[in-house]
């Protein structure tokens, strides 16, 4: 069954003659446990789609349902709770709180949910250890490398055991090697831990880690490609040439 379903999802900024349509009647479906990459040229609406899926922003038209629940008309507080429990976010610039340690940062969503601090930290520590940061629990963000900080961010996204992880250019700020590490980590999240991941990227090499790629252009879905592991990257590169910038 589909974890995410959108119908005629449309987002318009501004009004009248200056109105810009960022998303134009998009209908997509994402299955549980699937790793989907969203690609497309700058300004095609990738990030807008992600924000709408995560309930960070509200659609102008159409709707999104997560796990069968329509989120478009939810109250802000309910939406916030949904985000807290069902959705995890990974951002390009990690967005860790500089004054909190790695484990405190990772524990933030469950702490905000009222879980006792010790318990919250235990859960966060588990994820961090799985991601190879067991010895860096007490480090502050400025003492970690970019790749390490992003792994803390992924741990933070998973700590409340959400069904869905949304990642916005998670490798955009990293070098090639760290980027590959994060991408394979996200793949591991889907395959090993059974979560669903939707990732926005413009890097074909990173997109190649996904099961399926949705191509957006001018706010519309222009293509979808199912990938198998072999030769995925070339296949994507060709697609991009075909679609054009």
């Amino acid at each position, binding site marked *: 069954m589909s974890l995410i379903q959108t119908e005629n999802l449309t987002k318009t900024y501004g009004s009248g003659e200056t109105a810009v349509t960022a998303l134009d009647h998009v209908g997509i479906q994402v299955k549980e446990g699937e790793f989907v990459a969203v690609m497309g040229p700058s300004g095609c609406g990738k990030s807008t789609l992600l*924000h709408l899926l995560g309930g960070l922003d509200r659609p102008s038209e159409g709707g999104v349902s997560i796990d069968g629940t329509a989120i478009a008309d939810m109250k802000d507080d309910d939406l916030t709770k949904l985000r807290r429990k069902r959705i995890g*976010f990974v951002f390009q610039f990690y967005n860790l*709180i500089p*004054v*909190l340690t790695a484990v405190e940062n990772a524990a933030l969503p469950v702490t*905000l*949910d009222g879980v006792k601090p010790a318990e*919250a930290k235990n859960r966060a520590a588990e994820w961090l250890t799985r991601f190879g940061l067991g010895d860096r629990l007490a480090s502050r963000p400025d003492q970690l490398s970019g790749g390490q900080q992003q792994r803390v961010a992924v741990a933070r996204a998973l700590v409340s055991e959400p069904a869905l992880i949304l990642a916005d250019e998670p490798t955009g700020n990293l070098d090639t090697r760290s980027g590959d590490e994060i991408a394979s980590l996200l793949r591991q999240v889907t395959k090993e831990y059974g979560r669903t991941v939707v990732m926005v990227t413009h890097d074909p090499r990173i997109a190649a880690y996904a099961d399926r790629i949705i191509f957006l252009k001018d706010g519309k879905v222009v293509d979808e490609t199912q990938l198998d592991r072999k030769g995925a990257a070339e296949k994507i590169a060709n697609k991009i040439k075909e679609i054009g910038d």
Partner: protein
Amino acid sequence: MNLQLTLAWRYLNGRRLRTFLTTLAVVFGVMLIFGMNIILPTMLEAFQANIMAAGNLVDVTVTHKSGSGFPMAVAHELDGIAGIRAASASLERTVNLPADFVDGNPSKPDGITALGLIGVDPEAAQSLHAYLVQVPGRFLQQGDTNAAVISQTLADAYGVKLGAMIKVPSVSGTETLTVVGILPPRTLPGNEEVLVTLSQAQTMTGQSGQINTIEVALTTTDETLRNQTVTSIESALGNEYQVGALQSGSEMFASIKMGQAAFNMFGVLALFMGGFIIFNTFRTVVAERRRDIGMLRALGAKRGTITGMILVEGLLQGLIGSGVGLLLGYLFAAGIVRLMQQPLSAFIRLTLGRPVVSPTLVINSILIGVGITVLAGLIPASTASKITPMDALRPSVAEVEYKRRAGAGFIAGLVMIGLALLALASGNMSLISVGGLLFLLGLILVAPVLLRPIVFVFGRLTALVYARQGTGDLAQGNLTRQPSRVTITASATMIGLAIVVALGGMSTSLNGMMSRVLHKSLGSDYLFIPPSVSIWNSDMGAGSGFTDRLKAIPGIGDISTLRFAASTFNGQAISLLGINPVTYPKVGGLDFKQGDESAYTALANGRNMIVNGAFLMSIPVKVGDSIELATPNGPQTYTIVANASDLLNAKVVTAFISQANLAADFGRTDDLFIQMNLKPGVTLDSVDAQIKAVAADYPQFTVIAGKAYIDQMMQLLSAVFIGMYFMLAFLAFPSLIAMLNTLAINVLERTREIGMIRAVGGTRKQIRRMVVAEALLLASVGTAFGIFSGMYLGYVIVKALGVLFPMEYSFPLAGVLAGIAIGLLFGALAAVIPARQAARLQVVEALRYE
């Protein structure tokens, strides 16, 4: 417009809340300084107009150094001195009037509150002054009795015409004078003069055969010749006399000066807080615009251009802030002047005029306002100029200071606090005063290091009772990420609250002491109070006829009076009060600090005196010493037998001597303040009507039952304290701006983080709680410091006042509670706007924020 100005203006405009708050700090400081410096000159001017006569043809004025009267024969010493055109001996006395004396109309404010009674020799006076008496009518003539010449203004005030009678208080009861001449209305407001013959004035003031002023007109305007003449006059009279300007009212000037110093200290403190706020803002501005500045540098902007840009911003804010501050300061002063008139009238008959604004004050206030703003911007501006183009390329995130500054500053701070505590232990007053300053500075220096532990403790508390689910921890972490910013903010709060707690301590201690002294020194059954209590020189007393008549009323017990004469020692004006050593202790009494009641007996035997705390503070002598006091009959040696004070004269340099000595050495026998007890068993009701009837002939006195007077004084005192607390809360206001500013900056800087917290599931409520908790923590740090330093400062003030009055330091519980309440209230208030802004952030926009 040039680029710097354009950029400065756009940036300021782009951050309206912050610009508003920073400018508000400047506005407040300028307002306080400008306002305070309007109020005091306004009082001074009213006072001068009250005392000083309008200028005329007089070149030189001769008075006795003691300020008291002297024999008429002295005037003849000037005969034959070359260069003197004319000389006129006179007896001048300011006579404060009871309320509604002139117009008899309680519903109308009094235009005339005091008269200048001037006794002159008609011929000599006319050779010095041009008296333009209106026709019909004439000037005074030799041999006139009960005749007076007054101005049209005064005649209108009395509602009389030529030939009518006016009433003037005198030592032998109200005197009725016939108006024989009317002078044109006075152009300058001030004391209206009543001109009478010299002998008339001597009778009315009870100073027979005495004068107190010789006015001299010189023949030439040549500076050298004039100086020669003045020198000749000085040598003819000897060094007992003052040749030059009139020296009256020095007691009042001293009081006003003390007030001015205190007011200016408040202004400086307010500006100090303002400087902190501005400094904080500019530091943030620079940190926030690191990328913009780097980009400008990359495009070829010179360092000087960057520095200039920041300073132009300061200049703009300084100018606008100062302008608004001037306007508000004027309104503030005008309001205070109006409010002050009432309580002031209870003590002194003084009408305050319109606020006095000098151009220098306007210029100075603007210079100070703009100067402080630009100065506070200097360091941040120089930091800005050091930003490299490379900074433009780094991502912008909220900065965090991880360095713990347990360096030289911390150690210096500890040393300062240590020294302050040692000073406290030493008991030496001047050391303790310096210690107060050291304590404040020391706290500011150690604050960055102590911040984390203090915030940790308060943070646990906040997390427990208010900010659960991790928001408290976040607040705690957020607050300590910029220790120096928080320290500066907390310092502003600390200063504000220290003032509240210190003055709270002072008022608690003062209140207890006042009530004790009041009951002791003014506890008699009846009091006869002159219009201006403790500015005795301008009150018209009563001759012995008044007390004789009082004594004749059956049921009257002891009567004690205060008499006054002015004297000097080494140029220091001394107020001499004559008491009756036998009756004074029975009816009133002094509060002894050194010596005891046996000192009264000593006053009756030989030239001995009891001096007050202010005396010993101004003159370097101790109990047991003998000093020479200036008297009209040459210097006389008096021995100090005790140190004691009464309430009315506490802040004036005062010595108490026997009335016999006062009469013998200073020629004064008029009673200025009378206290009276009833015989045991006699009720107030049975004698009240008779007493009031006698007193009716002496309208210069207000008759009041002692108990009622004390009640009235205590009421006035609490009114003053309430007014003071109000003003203090006002002074603590910049700390509110400081906190609000810092919180607004913190929230703005962390926009992205807040967006992230919202994204991962923080509700609006949790965000709001986070900011409010941060505000409360910030406030509690400032409050904790403020209470400590406030208690120290309060101790300093109480000790300082203890020199005048023995008083115990009592723990300022009310002040501490007020401090905590104000601190937390301000913290919570400061959080309102930033918390709402933070909670309302749109998640997507916040995440994109740079």
